[in-house]
């Protein structure tokens, strides 16, 4: 039987890490993810885990220590947010380029400046092309579940890529929700032992990692990373299937909420999906065929699958909690519209930038998006596809 608890998102992430019991955790405190290494260090102090906790002096060092540990043959984890991730940036690429399956808990927060410690997705969007698998979590439960599945995906021999599990800073990280935990033994069995094929501390096989890789080779190595990312899609689904057998909780590349027969749909990630589900239910009672597509797996991007899932609707709004500041919509919007175009799906689609710097996004605002979509669905061409939600203009 699973254990019923009530935990904040950070407690859920720290609990998952405790049950995974990695060899090394290297992390540096930064709001709103601070509690994860804080709770974890108490687990270490109380002898509840076997982990070597490295209290580093910066996030650059945190990722560097994880890289060193993982290359040595250990299972390494970390947690961070916003500017902490920015400081890791150089090493983020080294981790994926060296094909080290490090797992990170990323508690999403606005990247300064001006200084802001609240939730948006600008930190995650800054590393969206860095070769990390990126899973997004609507609830504390999903943040926990995604972490339990993370190592099985990242360490798969056809994948071998680092992975980050995202959740919304404060909105889920500091909100206490009901949660179902697995028993320690079951987690241990599910996650399994990490047996790296090649590692630095193997005295029988001296190995050089991260060597010079000039014009004749880097291209092919980057292609291998892209292939691994493509392979990850099936692995993510396979692991989810095993996880469902264990817990009854079902996960796909994305969640379709009342999307089957929907005429208008919102696409978004993380906690806003919860708000949107509420609005979908309200609108459905009024006879309006609203639906939601919640992206769980953002990298690899399930382009074909998403395009297919949206092919029958009459208008789509993509909600981005980070402005790409390119004057042409958010990153998720760009990916979604590209996916539809390439797969021959022609649906009027608009970009909504919302919730920047922790701005609340209410059911009323989500409803206004659906109202816009009802108008859009009557038109052949959208005149103003680059929109804002909850912004004061004048």
């Amino acid at each position: 039987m699973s254990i019923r608890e009530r935990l904040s998102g950070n407690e859920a992430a720290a609990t998952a890490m405790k049950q995974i019991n990695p060899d090394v955790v290297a992390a540096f405190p930064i709001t709103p993810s601070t509690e994860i290494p804080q709770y974890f260090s108490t687990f270490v102090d109380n002898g509840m885990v076997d982990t070597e906790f490295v209290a580093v002096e910066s996030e650059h060092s945190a990722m560097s220590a994880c890289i060193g540990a993982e290359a040595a043959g250990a299972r390494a984890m970390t947690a961070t947010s916003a500017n902490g991730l920015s400081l890791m940036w150089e090493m983020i690429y080294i981790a994926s380029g060296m094909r080290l399956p490090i797992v990170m808990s990323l508690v999403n927060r606005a990247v300064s400046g001006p200084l802001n410690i609240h939730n948006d997705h600008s930190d995650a969007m800054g590393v969206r092309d860095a070769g990390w698998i990126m899973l997004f979590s609507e609830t504390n439960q999903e943040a926990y579940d995604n972490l339990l599945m993370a190592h099985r995906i990242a360490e798969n021999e056809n994948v071998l890529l680092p992975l980050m599990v995202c959740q919304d800073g404060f909105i889920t990280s500091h909100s206490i929700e009901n949660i179902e935990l697995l028993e320690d033994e079951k987690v241990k069995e599910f996650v399994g032992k990490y047996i790296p094929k090649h590692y630095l501390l193997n005295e029988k096989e001296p190995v050089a990692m991260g060597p010079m890789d000039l014009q004749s080779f880097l291209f092919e190595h980057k292609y291998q990373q892209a292939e691994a990312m493509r392979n990850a899609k099936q692995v993510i689904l396979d692991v989810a299937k095993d996880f469902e057998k264990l817990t009854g909780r079902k996960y796909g590349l994305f969640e379709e909420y009342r999307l089957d027969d929907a005429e208008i749909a919102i696409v978004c990630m993380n906690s806003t999906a919860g708000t949107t589900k509420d609005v979908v239910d309200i609108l459905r009672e009024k006879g309006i065929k609203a639906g939601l597509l919640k992206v769980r797996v953002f990298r690899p991007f399930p382009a074909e699958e998403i395009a297919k899932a949206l092919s029958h609707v009459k208008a789509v709004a993509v909600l981005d909690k980070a402005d790409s500041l390119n004057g042409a919509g958010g990153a998720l919007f760009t990916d979604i519209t590209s996916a539809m175009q390439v797969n021959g799906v022609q649906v009027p689609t608009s970009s909504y930038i919302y919730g920047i710097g922790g701005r609340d996004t209410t059911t009323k605002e989500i409803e206004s998006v659906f109202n816009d979509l009802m108008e859009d669905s009557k038109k052949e061409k959208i005149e103003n596809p680059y929109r804002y939600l909850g912004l004061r203009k004048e």
Partner: protein
Amino acid sequence: MTNIDKNTPASKMTIGGEIYEAGNAREFKTGDWRSVRPEYIPEKCIQCGLCFPVCPEDAIPVGKDQKRTDFNFDYCKGCGVCAKVCPFGAIVMKTEGE
């Protein structure tokens, strides 16, 4: 796996460029970095032994008889230090390809 070159397909390369054996620097032929090459003129060489100790790449082979032979162009980067130390004009630097 260190025996790869510009014709090796991605499927035959290790991930992350990893090298699963030690002592592999000799597999990395650095001679193609060269823009000028030293030319060895044996008739002028008196085997004084000044050139080979200054070669940073150990690209001047010396036999058991303590006599040097022609350059190892797999590794010679054309730095010209040997030509500079030779008192007898037995090493002349030439532009690569001429």
